Each structure stands twice: as C-alpha cells, then as structure tokens.
C-alpha cells in the first residue's frame, strides 16, 4: 500500500522506473481480470495494452487520490465492457473459445495459464455479463460489493444477488463437467 502511494507520486513526476514497477506489479493481475471478463486472449491483450498505454500518458492528469490497483481494475473493466459492446456479444463461449484462445500456451506463449485456469475461465464465460462481472471484480479484482455496486450503478443487494446466482450457476456448470 505504501509502495503504491510512492509509485503514484513518482509516476506522476515522470519516473520511468515507477511506471515500469507498476506495470510489472499489475500486468498479470489485469490480464487475469481481462480474461475473466472476456475469455478471449486477443481481446484481453488489447484491453490490458490500452489500459497501460493510456495510464502511461496520463501522469499529468492522474489523481493521486484513490487506490492504484482499484483504479487499474476499473479501467480494465470499462474497456472490457467497451469491447463487449463493440462486438455485440459477451465473452466467447466454450466452443468458440477453443479457437479464440488457441494462442494460450502456444508457441509464442502470449498468455500462459494452467488447464485448470482455462477450464474455470470457460465456465465463468457462460455466465450472464452482469454476474460474470461481479464474480470477476469480487474474486479477481478484490473489490467490495459496495464498490462494484457503484460501478454497475445498482444497489449492493442487487450485486450480492448477482454474485450468489453467479456462483450457483458456476457450481452447476462445474459439477456438470465433473459428471460428464
């Protein structure tokens, strides 16, 4: 936490090292979040790329207040939403994901993950957008329900409901896999 405060100050003052450290610290966290929201390696890469590039150019206007990790998490979520809207579809579903995520662990190792991780992600991809977002932000973005409620513009109760329904559906999906 203290390190982040320092990094923000240094970044705002043009430190290349601080930017590099922020990048190293949060790259994989944001990539995982983007994958959970989009289930598409190419689009997740684009989102994380755009978030960091935009962040890098924003030093002058960057507000020191607030939590750096939450800030970057929110940026990823907003850009992932833009991607979903632009494509008029949600995250790539299980069948399509086979090809869309074909670069996972491929020869160029663009995004590396375990089989278990990919399986979980494909399951999350089958949830409705709102539920998927809540689960991703809560469990991978480490945000509170009230923070997510504010982002989605709904009540905390609604968010907790979406979270509960999302987990139930996820349990069904995963149990279905087990039973196969």
């Amino acid at each position, binding site marked *: *936490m203290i390190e982040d405060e320092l990094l923000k100050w*240094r970044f705002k003052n043009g430190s290349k090292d601080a930017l590099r450290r922020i990048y190293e610290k949060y790259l994989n966290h944001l990539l995982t979040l983007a994958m959970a929201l989009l289930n598409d390696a190419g689009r997740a890469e684009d989102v994380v790329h755009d978030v960091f590039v935009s962040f890098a150019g924003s*030093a*002058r206007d960057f507000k020191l207040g607030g939590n750096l990790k*939450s800030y970057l998490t929110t940026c990823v979520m907003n850009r992932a939403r833009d991607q979903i809207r632009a494509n008029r579809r949600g995250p790539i579903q299980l069948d399509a994901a086979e090809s869309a995520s074909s670069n996972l662990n491929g020869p*160029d190792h663009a995004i590396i993950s375990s089989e278990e991780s990919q399986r979980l992600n494909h399951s999350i991809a089958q949830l409705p957008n709102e539920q998927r977002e809540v689960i991703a932000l809560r469990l991978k973005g480490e*945000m509170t329900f009230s923070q997510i409620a504010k982002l989605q513009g709904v009540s905390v109760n609604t968010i907790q409901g979406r979270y509960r329904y999302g987990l139930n559906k996820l349990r069904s999906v995963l149990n279905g896999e087990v039973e196969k």
Partner: protein
Amino acid sequence: MRSQDNIEESIKKKLSFTAGTELHDRILNDVLNAQEKSKKTKSAATEPRIGRIIMKSSITKLAAAALIIIAIVLATNFMNESIPTVSAQEVLAQATKAVANLRSVYIKAQIRTIPHDNFELIRLDYDFVPNEMWKEFDGTPQGKWRIEKPGRIVVMDGQSSLLLIRPNHAAKGTITTGFVGWLKPLLDVDKVLDSEIRLAQEQGSELLLTHQQGLDGKDRLLVSIEALAQGDFTNDWLRNKSISASDNLRIYTFDAETKLLETLEVYVHTAGEDVLVLQITDIEYNLDIDPELFSLELPEDVIWYGQPKELADNEKYEQMGPKETAQAFFEACADENWDEFLKFWSASAVDQRIKDYLGGIEIISIGEPFKSGRYAGWFVPYEIRFKNGHTKKMNLAVRNDNPANRYVVDGGI
C-alpha cells in the same frame, strides 16, 4: 458437489493468466513510449500543478492558515461515496494529544552521505551510511539527545551540545546549536508532523494526507510532501547536496491510532530517476536509554573548532573578500605558515594530518566567488597541486557571519 466456498477459493487461487515474455516486452515497450511521448507534449506546457496553485494563492494561504486542509484520499474506500476526510488540523490535534506521554525515541536510519562529513550532506552516488538517533523527552524544549554516524557524534545533555568528529576534533554548542541540520527536526518526533505541515505551507510544497490500511490490517496515516529545492541555484553547486537543496519527496507513515512516526523515506528527484537518499530502518519508542549516551568522552589531543576571535590586526582580515581570503589561505598552506593558516581556520590547533595534506601545495588558480543554495557564505573555485604532484579542483567555502566579521574557511578542502 462443490461448495460455494470451494468455488470462490478455486477462482481466487487457480484462475490465473500470465503474460509470456514476448507479450510482456511488447506492451511494456508501448507503455514506456507512451510515457516519453506524453512527457514531450507536457514539456511545452507551463501550467503549475494544482497543489502548488493552491498553496501559492494568497487567498488560499490565508484560508490554509485557519484550516489547513490539503488533500485527502481513502484508498480502501476508492469507490465509496462516504469518503471520510482528514484535515491537517484534526490530525495535529490528535497527534499532540497522542505523543503527550512519550518518554523516548530511538531511530535508526540509512543516509547516502560520508561517515565523517556533516550530517546534512547527501550525494546521490554515495553509499548508505548508518545513522542512529536517541532522544529522551524530559519536559524541557530541547530534551536530551544523541545523533551518531561512524565518523561523527553530537550529544545534547540538556544544557549544551557537543560535537565530536572522529578521531580528535570537537566543537561546543549551545542549547540551540545543533550541528545536525535536517536530522534534528526528525528527532523531534513529537513535532515532526507539525513542522512538516508548517514547512509545506511556508515553502508552497505539495502535501498529501491519506489514510491507508496496511496488509497487517493496521490503519496508518501517510503524509507525502513534494518539496522544491530551497535557495538560489543560479550556480547549482549545492543542488542535491542536502535534502533541503533538492527537489524531494518525503513519505512519512504514522500509526493512525497513536500518531507516532513509523517510517520515513526521502527520495531526491533527478532528471533520470528518483533516488532514495534517506530511509528509517528502525524506530522504537519509550525504551530506557542509558544516561551515558548523552555525554561524550573526548580524546586527550582534542582540537577544538569554534567561532573565530578578533585578532590584533583583525581589520586587515576584515577587508579581505572571499577571493582574497582563499588566496591568502592557500598561500599560508604553500608556505606552511600555520600561524597564518589559523587566521582562516577557526580551530585551536592545526592537526598534523592537515599539515601533511596541505603543506607545500602549489596554487594553480583561484576563480571568481559564487553563491549557491541557501549557504550564507561564498564558494571560491580553486585548483591546487599537492607535493606528491596530484592536483585538485574544488570550491572553497568561506563565510564571515561571525563575531570577528572576517572570512574563515568553512569547507571544501
């Protein structure tokens, strides 16, 4: 059947994607380029930062004097509407109350400096030198304290201060003479928050107060001060040679409950990078301090530094400017005329090591004096050749703000 908890735990722990090397490097390259591009765009802009606008406005300065509210942020409540605010005034009131029963403090810090040189000196390329500080709060404004690094010690026994420069140089000071520059306010740990906030007001520094919750769940008050170098740097000789002569970032953390200082890091901003120059590595409160720590045993062959006294022919020396003083000082060295040397060197005797070092030198050049930073005296560029043939180019520091009103050498040898 999986329980809800197991699913949550699986997602938290097992859902993980990592950037491969090629992707990592490709994005990083674009990110750093974007920063560079942004810097170039910004360099054309001259708009000062909001924090400085706030503190430089006379109206807001007045407002700040009444209620010093600077900036408040709550990391843990980033998106929460109910963001609590903290004013410096509020914090100070709490801090004063919290430190009322403070008995002692021990601070260990590392500073980029030279072991035997003055406590205020820093250089960005120096190695870290350990500094230790003790203070006993005895109800008097000055208290008893000790600051020590490998080559230099200062103690205050409650009545007067005493400086020892190892192995055998010493100086006496009064209650207010500190010899320790910037470290003294740090040792006044019960006032450090107050003095930093007041300093930020006076100097127009950016100051940010935030509440943070650490990984240990403990609430902390974080105070960040973005300060500009103080003084005139038309000649930048003194720039970055002390914390106050540098553009620096000071980050303090205080226990939010007790308001006691926990950590401090000081970074000096340079064009290329931010350099950590001071860091508290340990701080402990209310330890029993051995009273012996506040006294010093001096060596038998001690040589005393002190204020220059009026000479029988003081008028002759009063008339010398900085350049003439440097010339006369080095001529005394060249001639190994140590009685004359002492007229420019405010000590009780000349140490044999100084005689060996400076005796018989040859003056190559003496340049034009200049001012730098907030130093009260002048710097005189010089080049000399030692008896062994080696040469040295440096700036001699001379000052005359003393009772004898004549220039004496204050550093730069």
